[in-house]
Structure formats: structure tokens, C-alpha cells
């Protein structure tokens, strides 16, 4: 019990770090991943803006980044992250790698939810004289809203999982705490406390995500 009160400040700090990393990464994942997902989709769709070579290049880049084990990605992009954040460790520094990992993941999830939008409704929009831009903003995105919300939920949870590795660059966060104290030092209490905290956080994210998804069913 006493050990638990000792680690409370540590947990609290880790929680803040995780929140910071997740916030930064999901922000960029959506900011860049959404347009990338849109591009992946429209460049493959003959009704919209098919450019096969562009689609293949974008697809290849996305796949390459997604194939990197996260720890290697961190190391590989270290120079870029240093240049961007003007530092070489800490949660903000780790967020660069997290964002880069999350962008292609989210882009693919967006593309998948667009694939679920019926061909017919797109055709009807084209027949109605709508421009590509209007179709994206007023048909694709609203029709795929549920899938996109689920994609955000899933991406956040993946970022939390990735962030456990962020410890190697001093990113901190709950996952890092679990590994450092629980795993390397055989500190069972901290390990259990952090794992429970992680479970609660992931559950909470999922619950909120599901709630928002359900609210968007369109009626």
C-alpha cells in the first residue's frame, strides 16, 4: 500500500506524458493521414480521380512505413526528429516517431472506410453535377464518419501501445513506466498498477470512441 502511494507521482507524471504524446500524434495522424487516406482512395477510384502511378507510389510509401518495427522507426528518423523538435529525447521528441507511425495507419483506415461508401451514391453525386471537392466533403466524409471515428479510436489505442517503446528516447509515459519498473526491476506493484492504468485508459478510449460512433449513425 505504501509502495502504491510512492509511485502515485510517477504514475501521474507518466499519465501526463502519455496524454501529451497521444494528443500530438493523433493530431498529426488526422491532419496528414486524412488527406493521405482521401488521396489513396480517389486516385484508385475510376469515378473520381484515378491516377494509377500516384496511387501506387502513395500505397508503397504507406506500406513501407507500416512495415517498420516501431523501435527501428524511432532510430531511423532520429535526425529528422531532432531537427524538428530541437531536442533528442522526451515525449515531444518521441511524438515525431509516433506521428509518423500513426499517419499511414490512420490513412489506411480512412481509405478502408471510404471503400465502404456505395459506388451508387458517388455516381448519383457525379450525375448531379457535384465537383470532386464537394463529393469529398459532403459525401465521402459524412458517409464514412462512423468508420473514421472508429479509425481514430483504433489509432489512439495503437499510439498508446507504440508509446511503450518511447522509453528508449526518454519519451516516458505509462507503457515506459511499466517496462522500466515492472519488467526490468521486478517491481510487481508498479507493474500491476501501470498495467491496470493502461487497461483503464484503453477501455475508456474505446468506450468514448464507441459512444461517438453510435451517436453518428445518422438518425
Amino acid at each position, binding site marked *: 500500500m505504501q509502495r502504491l502511494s510512492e509511485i502515485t507521482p510517477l504514475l501521474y507524471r507518466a499519465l501526463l506524458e502519455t496524454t501529451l504524446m497521444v494528443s500530438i500524434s493523433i493530431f498529426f495522424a488526422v491532419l496528414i493521414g486524412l488527406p493521405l487516406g482521401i488521396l489513396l482512395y480517389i486516385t484508385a477510384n475510376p469515378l473520381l480521380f484515378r491516377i494509377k502511378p500516384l496511387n501506387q507510389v502513395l500505397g508503397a510509401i504507406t506500406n513501407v512505413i507500416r512495415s517498420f518495427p516501431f523501435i527501428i522507426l524511432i532510430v531511423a528518423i532520429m535526425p529528422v526528429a531532432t531537427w524538428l523538435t530541437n531536442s533528442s529525447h522526451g515525449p515531444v521528441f518521441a511524438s515525431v516517431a509516433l506521428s509518423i507511425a500513426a499517419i499511414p495507419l490512420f490513412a489506411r483506415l480512412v481509405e478502408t472506410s471510404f471503400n465502404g461508401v456505395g459506388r451508387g451514391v458517388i455516381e*448519383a*453525386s457525379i*450525375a448531379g*453535377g*457535384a465537383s470532386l471537392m464537394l463529393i469529398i466533403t459532403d459525401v465521402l466524409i*459524412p458517409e464514412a*464518419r462512423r468508420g473514421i471515428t472508429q479509425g481514430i479510436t483504433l489509432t489512439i489505442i495503437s499510439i498508446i501501445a507504440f508509446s511503450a517503446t518511447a522509453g528508449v528516447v526518454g519519451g516516458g509515459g505509462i507503457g515506459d513506466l511499466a517496462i522500466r519498473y515492472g519488467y526490468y526491476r521486478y517491481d510487481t506493484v508498479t507493474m500491476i498498477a501501470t498495467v491496470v492504468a493502461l487497461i483503464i485508459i484503453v477501455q475508456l478510449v474505446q468506450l468514448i470512441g464507441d459512444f461517438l460512433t453510435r451517436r453518428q449513425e*445518422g*438518425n
Partner: protein
Amino acid sequence: MAIVLEDVSKTYEVKGRKVEALKRLSLTVEEGEIFGIIGFSGAGKSTLLRLINLLEQPSSGSVSVNGTELGALSGEKLRTKRKKIGMIFQQFNLIESKTVYQNIEFVLKASKYEKKEVKSRIEELLALVGLSDKADSYPGNLSGGQKQRVGIARALANHPEVLLCDEATSALDPDTTKTILKLLKKINRELGITIVLITHEMEVIKEIADRVGVMTAGEIVEESDVYSIFSHPGHAVTKGFVQDIYDFSIPPHIQLNDNSDVITIKFLNENAEANYVNQLYRHFDCDISILNGRIEYIQDMPLGFLMLHVQGEAQEITRLKAFIDESKGIERAEIYAETI
């Protein structure tokens, strides 16, 4: 001439194999008419219809709508032209995440409709299709017929000159089909919008079309006014489509020989005189009994059939047939019945 297709072909390439969906087809649809195209699945109907608003590009040939050659259009000009060509679909194709009101608003937005007039235009359209009370409903909560009404309102939003209907009633039950067809007819008559509709159901053609083209394997094999299609089908495929009304079976107990024959007569338009059978009785020394009869109304014109069993001298029967053949507006019908 509202729509002119000249020598259009459309070839799809599927896994290296060429599919000729349309084969050098020409067609003219007159302004203000309802032109129906009937054919079995795979005949090329949808492909043909989609050329008219350039959802598909023809492989060769030209398509013009109200004097504008579509092949010459692209980008903004093409979008502007498309706003003048409405389209409705079998599966309605509404935006599920938008209300009825927003679905119509969407196409007005696409045409940069005068903002102040958007609301009144939508209300006007909803009143036209009878859905004023459903403005805030989502498509998911509407019946098929109501969804198609939304589809129609959306298609009409930008005051089109032409309305294309791709199997618009094929997903609806017969009663709903009737009300939707009535609505389409009203739109055609009151707003003067040219309608091209495709279907695989002769009922739809009978109900609403002025003229009809019969399509098979990428070609229009027969084209004429609807009454003639029913009264004088020429092509085998056409006969197949109208066969229902020619479907009289000969009762099994009837012997067919030189002295006993079954003759089905066809009464065209109003030429049929009520006392025609009387005349036959009077003028011919035959036993005549009525086996079957039916009257179809096609565009409010009657098309009648009467199946007679005639017994008597072979010579007299031949004379009777000749008399029928000479009577104005009356013909002997080819029937599609098998003798059981």
C-alpha cells in the same frame, strides 16, 4: 430532338477480354416524350443510359443532348450540363448520413443555387413529390417508395431538361411502382421534362412510355410507339416481352383438323365493332364458340383478343379466315400457346 445518339459503341475490357456492351447504336429521343428501353439483364441498357450524362464515355460515336455534343465537354462545362440531366436509380443512391432536406440541398449546392432560394426550392420539390412532412427524416427511416421520391426531387432540383431513370421501380412493390410511375408521368406532362427510362418489365413500358426501344446484345432491334409494340411485335425478343398478353392456351379437348379450328382474333384500337362476332355468326355457316377473351388497355387504347373455336366445312372455315383478314382493324393473332 432532345437526345441524339449516333453510331455509338461501347467496349469494356475485362481481364483482357473485350465485352461489346453497345454495338454501333443510333437512337433519337424527341423532346418532351417518355422513351422506354426494355431488355433483359446484360442487354446494355444501363450502359446506354449512362452515356447520356457521360457517366460512361462512348468508345466511338457521338451523343448530344439538346444540341450540345457531350464529347466536347469536360470539367466545369460538363458539370453544368449534367445539372440539366437528372438521373434516378434502382437503388435510390441517397446520402444515408444526410436528411431528405440535406440530400436535395446537396445538389443545389453543387450548382451554386442562389442561397436565398434554396429553402423555398426544396420545399417546392418536397411538395411536388409529396414528402413535405419528411424533410428531416433520414433515408434509413423511409420506405422504398419514399426514397425514390427523394431521388426524384433531387434529380429535379436544378430544373433539368431530361430525366434518366435506371430501373427506377425495379426495387419496389407493384402498388408503389404504379404511384411512382404516375408521378413520373405527371412530371413529364406538367414540367415538360423528357424522360428516358430503362426497365426489364413490360408493365412499366405499358404504364408510362410513349415510345419504346427493344434492346438485346447491345443493339436496339425494334423501336416504335408502345401500342404498336404490343399489337404488332416484330422481333423475337419483343414477342417474348409481350407474350403474356398473347398467352392463350387451347383447351385440351379440342381437336384440330380440317373441320375444326381455333382462331384468335385481335381487335385494334377502336376499330373493333361490338357486333363483330354477330357478323361472323350471321355470314358463315359454322359453329362458333368463344373459348377465351381479353382486353388490354395500352395508353388508354384497347387491344382486344377473342379466341374462337370454329367448326364446319373446311371451305367455309377458309372463307371465314379470309373475311377476318379483310376486316379493317381486325387481325388474326399469332398466339404463344402450346396445345396440351
